[in-house]
């Protein structure tokens, strides 16, 4: 047999596609559906809530929002406090602080 041409390969591809389409269709039984439902119920019962994903997602978002608000409040407080005393801010940022040395002369 000679080397397969492009046309030959196209023909083989078409035949393979036909073979693929003619696969026998499977039939899933009622027992199979019951097994799926049993696993879903078990999974749900294990989580202890009907649809926990919605609950967890809400808690995560609420927690994140609370943390963000707290961080904003802390930042604002720190900015207000430090703007009252610029020397203290300089001192906080300084790497060359020595123990016992006066901060303000």
């Amino acid at each position, binding site marked *: *047999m000679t*080397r*397969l041409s492009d046309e*030959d*390969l196209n*023909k*083989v*591809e*078409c*035949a*393979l*596609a*036909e*073979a*693929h*389409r*003619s*696969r*026998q*269709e*499977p*039939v*899933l039984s009622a027992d*199979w*559906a019951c*097994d*799926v*439902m049993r*696993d*879903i*119920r078990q*999974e*749900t019962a294990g989580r202890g809530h*009907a*649809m926990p*994903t*919605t609950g967890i*997602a809400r808690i995560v978002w609420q927690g994140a929002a609370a943390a963000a608000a707290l961080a904003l409040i802390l930042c604002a407080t720190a900015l207000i406090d430090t703007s009252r005393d610029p020397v203290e801010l300089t001192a906080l940022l300084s790497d060359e602080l020595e123990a016992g040395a006066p901060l303000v002369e």
Partner: protein
Amino acid sequence: MQTQVADDLEIIHRVLHGEIDLFAALITRYQQHVARIVNRHVPSDRVAEVGHDVFIRAYGSLPRFSGHVPFEHWLSGIAVRTCYEFWRANRREELPVSALTTEHQQWIERILAAESEDRFREQARRQEATELLQWALGHLSADNRLVLTLVSLEGYSVREAASLLGWSVATVKVRAYRARQALRKLFLEREAQEHDTTQ
């Protein structure tokens, strides 16, 4: 169809509000649809197991179902992606060329010689065709296998395949081209080896 879509939405809404057992109605309604999709991508003896995973995943993802597309379409995407995960998790069975017999070679010759449409179809439905297809698909990566099956074997458009796989159109286009080239290369190599052994 419109009534069914509305009915699906009503069931989903109630399942999300705690009436879990109603999900069984969706399973009954779509189990054959899912089985048909899964059967085209995984071996027949694994269809029940993968189909099972599809519905478990669908249930778990239900809170993220927006309702912008029909549930059936959304479920089809989950089914295809579960099959993709199946091939990523399971080692491919790369059968060597020697696994193919003279019957397979003769099948190719008969296909190339088929003069009528009926004769062609009759040959295409033979067991050798299925075995050759499985042999060839077994050499492809999970990506190439899925794309080739959807686009080249089942005739989905690139856009439809992209929607089912959750990939970009460009990615599907490139992978579909590469997968087809890989398939053709396999047959050319197989033929070259056959040629060498007969000489």
